[in-house]
Every structure is written in C-alpha cells, then in structure tokens.
C-alpha cells in the first residue's frame, strides 16, 4: 500500500513551526503518524528549523543563569507512562487510530446515521469549524458538494473515490471552493475518514441542493 497524497511543503513547515491552525495541525499530525515518507520530511524540516532558530543567541545575566540552572537541577526526574490504546468502534467494528487521534476516540458523542449509508461522529475539539469521523458503508456516498472554506480529509481505513480521483488509506486530501465532488466507496469493508472543515459544505446537485438550508445540521 502506498500513500499518494501528502501535505504540501508549506503545510508541513507551518505545522512543524507550530503555526498552522489547530484542526489542520491535528489532521496533518495524524497523516504523519501513518506516513513514513512524511516522517522523514518532518525530521528534515525540523532539523532545518532548529538550525535556523537556535543559531542566534540572547545571553542572560549570569545571576539569572545560575538561579535557573539551580531550580532545574532541583526538579525530580519525570516518570512517563505509555498511553493507553483506544479503538474507534462502530457497529462491532474496531478501528485502530493513528497516535495523534487516540485521545479523541473516546471524545465522540456517538455515531449518527445520516443520509444513505453514511455515518458521522463529531469530535468536539473546540476549534473554529468542525472535525468528524465519517464512515461510508459499501455503496455509500456523500451528495455532490463544494466547499466555502477548506476541507481536509485523511483516509484512516479503506478507500474511496470522488469522480476526480481514487484515495487509499493514508491519503491526505485538501479541497476548497474550486473543488466539487461526491465521495463514494465501493470497497467491501467501507471507508473511514477523518475530516476537518472550517466552513459548511455547499451541496450542488439535484435533490441534494435541498440540503443546503440544513447543511449546518450535517456538515457544518
């Protein structure tokens, strides 16, 4: 299995600097957990940033240096405990999640059944916009829509297509107002994605247009 779609250099650099928006940072982090290529890219970006950032010096007065050093040496060695492993559960299926999303498996307010064969579990991140786990059963699809803001999608398990491309586990997909698409999956095991949106979706075709007044209820 090979991941084809990765965050751009710019997205990765902003993320490595800690300057990307929190929701975007989280989904990039989850991709990096799944993607050996981006783990190497991150290591290189962080090395370059460290060289750039830690070259300049701003000396402290001796007295302050000594005080700080003494305070630090007086602190005990920290013991760290490994994190527990959480699985995301839907209908008796258990999904392993990337490290960065582990903590959120227990923070969903249950799955809600939406149109067709689509399930959605909102993750309350307290961010501007929203984040969801979305599961499409085999044959399930999201009505054609476009985006007023940005939609970032990470395929956590399975695969799907949207009329423009085919996406496999680990792929990182960015959509904005230029993209109109209608994701669907024909994979037997269905498809689980994590999605971060900063604006409501805008449905563009057929009956689904009727959803627009209510789109805040679905995919706000």
């Amino acid at each position, binding site marked *: 299995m090979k991941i084809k779609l990765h965050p751009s250099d710019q997205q990765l650099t902003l993320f490595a600097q800690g300057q990307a928006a929190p929701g975007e940072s989280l989904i990039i982090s989850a991709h990096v957990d*799944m993607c050996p290529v981006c783990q190497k890219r991150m290591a290189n970006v962080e090395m370059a940033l*460290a060289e750039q950032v830690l070259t300049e010096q701003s000396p402290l007065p001796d007295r302050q240096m000594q005080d700080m050093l003494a305070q630090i040496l007086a602190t005990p060695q920290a*013991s760290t*405990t*490994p994190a527990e492993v959480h699985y995301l559960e839907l209908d008796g299926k258990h999904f392993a999640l990337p490290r960065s999303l582990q903590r959120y498996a227990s923070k969903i307010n249950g799955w809600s059944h939406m149109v067709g064969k689509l399930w959605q579990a909102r993750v309350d991140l307290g961010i501007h916009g929203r984040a969801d786990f979305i599961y499409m059963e085999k044959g399930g699809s999201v009505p054609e829509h476009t985006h007023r803001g940005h939609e970032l999608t990470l395929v956590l398990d399975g695969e799907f297509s949207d009329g423009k491309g085919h996406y496999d586990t680990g792929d990182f997909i960015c959509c904005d107002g230029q993209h109109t698409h209608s994701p669907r999956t024909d994979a037997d095991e269905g498809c689980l994605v994590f999605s971060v949106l900063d604006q409501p979706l805008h449905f563009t075709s057929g009956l689904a247009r009727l959803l627009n007044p209510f789109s805040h209820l679905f995919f706000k």
Partner: protein
Amino acid sequence: MLVGIELNKYQAQGDVTNEMVACLHTVAAKRCQASFARLFHYFAPRLRAYALKQMGNDALAMELVQETLTNVWQKAHLFDASKGAPSTWIFTIARNIRFDMLRKQQHRKEDICADDLWPVLCEQTADLAQPELDEQVTLEQVGQLFEALPDKQKQVIEAIYIQGKSQQEVADALGIPLGTVKSRTRLALQRLKEMLSDED
C-alpha cells in the same frame, strides 16, 4: 582559504553536536549535573533568542526557556540520537511548550495539545498504538496473536498495554529488573510483528 574556514566551521559544528549527544546520554544514565550544566549554558541563550521573538515578553520568554530545559533535564532518556541532533530535539521541545503556553495565554478553547501533535516527549511504547499501514489489524486478530505469546511476555505486554503501567511499575510489581521488562517487551512486540506479517 575560504574552503578551510568552511571546513573548520562544519567540523566545529560536528564536534559540538557530538559533545551534546554525549552530555544528553550522561544526563539520562547518571543524572550528571555537570553534563546538564554544559547543555544548559550552550542552549539557554539560544532558546532565549527564539523565545523572545515568539513570546514578545521577557517574563514569558524566560518561562519558555526554563520549561524547555527542565524537560531536557527530566526526560533526557527520551532523546534518540538515531532520529536527529540534540539541537533538533531541543528545538522541538521548545516548539511544543510554546504551543501550549500560547494556548493557555490566549484562553483558546481547543482541546488539542502539543503532545497530540508532536510526540516529542511521549514514551516510545507505541509499536502497537501506531500501527503501520500494512499492520492495521482488527482487535480480534490482536487478541488471538496475544494469546499465542509465551506467558512471561504476555504478562508484561498485558500490564503495559492493557493496564497502562509503566515499565518501571511492571518491574517493581514482578520483582524483576527493568532491563528484563524492556527486553521482554521488545521480544513480544517483535514476535507480534512477525506473526502479523505472516498473516498477510
């Protein structure tokens, strides 16, 4: 001449890096205060320059410097020289602490912290918690494979991954050396990995 200067500069840089690696290892192994003092004097002024730019206020900048170097002192054992230079590791710690400090300071309500985003200061346990793509398996599969482990390995893996104990706690509870816990964990994970790749 110019080439000579450049070479010297790079060589000096490499020497500093090697020295810092050695210091981190001594701090991790023996809590050596002199080695930490060396790291401290090298990095504190550099971190302060970064912190002043990021925090825009001397008190907060000093807090960022102190917090970063406290983590270096307390968690030197998490530094892994095969993954990068000491300066990279220390920069990423500062970046993480900056992120959490700004979140608090700006009263942002996001439930996303630096440890979620960048696992710099997390105990590296998680071969099981970070399944490689090819190793995505169902809970049932893991359960079956787990049952197939030798009893001693099963005991350690259960305590660490299911009960969430630290390796030290497991060592204490079983009355065996920490090193034995570590090697049993490593062997068990290796074995699980092999069994998983056999299944494909």
